[in-house]
């Protein structure tokens, strides 16, 4: 129990002192892992803790990234405004999509997020005057300081840490407790006076907001955007990260993101069949380790965490 509390702090300390000794490339790789880790954690906020089948989370990531890029590239608005606008636009998109989706439950919710997410994708793909269509936007003029990999590393790490802390606080707050209650038992939640639709919508918007932050970070690191950011294969990839790390655990998705991003790079250097490898990993995971790595460890070394029933049995209710 003690150890579990300390590990995140140790990780943070190690990551803080790493840059001087790390080769450039690994700084970059870690920075992009931080971005994806935030994205995956924001998904897990509603998927693992809210029990909502969000099948197209990359949409909010993309909307955040695109809003930020377009404002920087095509308007004279100051950097700070663009930084704020990205997540806000993502949250607003989440509000729109969520408003339709929370009326249905379980798989139907999932299908609607998928369908509506594809609509957003189509808009971005089509509206080439604004978004550059499938060519994307490149050379986003982010302030000079972000051109240094070290800055990018520390900025992404700081934002990730702060966002994880905030998400953690939210999960431990009455809002989070209630969210988990609606996941565990929607019917009962209603009958103790929780407006589950509104509560789920709020959670959906929060998750969209944090995905938007990840989108902004992505642009800071990569300085370009393209519609593939909000393709559904991207969404599936994030879901795989959550599953790999453990859906019922808080740090699982971040761990999963680290593993998948790192592996995709490593495997990519040896073979063009990375997707096959990913598919096999996923298959094995689903069949024998559905509670994920951290879920498994939690189950093994302490009572709570990845519990037997697994995830979201009642989410379909």
């Amino acid at each position, binding site marked *: 129990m003690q150890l579990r509390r300390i590990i995140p702090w140790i990780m943070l300390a190690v990551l803080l002192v790493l840059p001087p000794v790390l080769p450039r490339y690994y700084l970059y790789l870690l920075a992009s892992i931080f971005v994806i880790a935030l994205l995956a954690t924001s998904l897990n906020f509603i998927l693992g803790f809210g029990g909502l089948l969000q099948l197209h989370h990359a949409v909010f990531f993309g909307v955040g990234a695109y809003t930020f890029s377009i404002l920087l590239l095509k308007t004279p608005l100051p950097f700070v405004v663009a930084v704020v606008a990205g997540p806000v636009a993502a949250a607003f998109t989440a509000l729109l999509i969520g408003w339709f989706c929370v009326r249905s439950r379980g798989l139907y919710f999932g299908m609607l997020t998928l369908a509506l997410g594809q609509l957003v994708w189509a808009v971005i793909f089509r509206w080439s005057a604004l978004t550059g269509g499938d*060519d994307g936007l490149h*050379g986003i003029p982010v302030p000079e300081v972000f051109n240094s990999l070290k800055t990018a590393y520390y900025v992404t790490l700081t934002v990730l840490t702060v966002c994880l802390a905030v998400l953690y606080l939210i999960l431990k707050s009455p809002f989070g407790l209630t969210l988990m209650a609606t996941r565990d038992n929607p019917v009962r939640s209603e009958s103790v006076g929780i407006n589950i639709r509104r509560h789920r919508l709020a959670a959906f918007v929060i998750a969209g907001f944090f995905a938007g932050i990840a989108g902004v970070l992505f642009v800071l690191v990569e300085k*370009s955007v393209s519609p593939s950011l909000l393709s559904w294969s991207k969404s599936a990839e994030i879901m795989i990260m959550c599953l790999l790390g453990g859906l019922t655990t808080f740090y699982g998705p971040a761990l999963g993101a680290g593993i998948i991003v790192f592996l995709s790079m490593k495997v990519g*250097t*040896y073979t063009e069949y990375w997707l096959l490898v990913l598919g096999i990993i996923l298959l*094995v995971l689903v069949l*024998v380790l559905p509670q994920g790595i951290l879920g498994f460890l939690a189950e093994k070394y302490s009572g709570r965490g990845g519990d037997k029933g697994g995830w979201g049995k009642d989410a379909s209710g």
Partner: protein
Amino acid sequence: MRKRFNLHYLAWTVIVMLVFGVLLTGCGQATPPNNSGAAGSGGSKFKVKVGYIDSLSGPAAAYGKSTEAGIKIAIDEVAKAGGPTIELVERDDSFKPDLAEASAKELVMNQNIDILVGTINSASALAVSKYAKDNKVLFINSDSMSEKITGAQGHRYVFSIVGNTAMIGKAGAYQMSKMPYKRYWLAGSDYEFGHSVVNSVWTNLQQMKPDVQKINESWWRVGESDFSSYINAIRAAKPDAVYVGSGGGDTVAFLKAINQSGLNKEVPIFIHAATDHDSLRPLGQDAPEGVYGTAFYFNYFPDNAMTKSFGEAYKKVTGNYPGFAGLNGYLTIKFLAAAIDKAGSTDKEKIIDALEGLSLDTPVGKGTIRKEDHQLMLPMVFGKTVKSANLPYLITTDNVLIPADKIMPSVEEVLKTRKK
């Protein structure tokens, strides 16, 4: 309970073994296959690592794989002829621009490579180009036909070996302006490539032949499976001619639909790359006759020794004759190798200087890299599809070589787009 845990250990073992297995088997293949016969001849003293990023899987894999084959053939040829030894480091971007950019960074930062080539996806090429600019590494665009690469977003560190949408449009308009048709229907795949080709054709055609009219335009989604309703709408409008700007896979499918509907017998149709071998070969005898098309390359025209030798070399490796994507890869390496020899160095800045204005003989004729915008100027070919007497697929007839100066946008025009 016991059984459950055993299962978990099994899972862990399988995952760990899988990961290591992939890493290990990968290591075996990691050495590039092309430098075997090279060093022996004691030729050039230059050795260089080139990073190659392309879509080797995903919807455009057909072109990526074809370019890859062209590149490998050129590497062998260059080495045998005593040129630089080129070690190719490949990365698959699966048609995803974010993956392409990440791969570029990995190649540059982790593998210490400062020459990159690729990629069929325009967004990938633009992203890699931008990264190359910021980090002062050389990027030679081998496949992407976006005119932004050497146009609006061009810079010192990017070169393009393949023709672009502006050139395609100008070449198409040049040929169409010689024909009597006035009322046009425009159509295409609804994405950047389709729109820029059609725009370029239409603006150029209006300049060359002011009395042309556009009846309407129609756009289908990339990967459309059913063209009958589009063909019916075109048929109903009774245009004099149709111009189509469609992506690779869509071109094949659209040609098939033309053949089934017989539209080619009612109205002249112009499609860029409809005459390309990669579009016609898959269709066998099911391709429509009489469709006009510009292309970057025919493997049988102009009939010269280089055309033949490259065609045969490519066929030996892949089993098929090459289309334009194969030539792209081939020319990319040829120009790079020539530049290294000319520069007498593998220093990227010197290679860039050497590439500027470099001329080489190619299967399509003499090609020169324009100094000002780093775009390769190469003639284009134009022809009309026809059934072949002895081949199982269609070829072209009435072939024309469109000289490079007729299809290149002027330097001023290009540099003006960069100012904006």
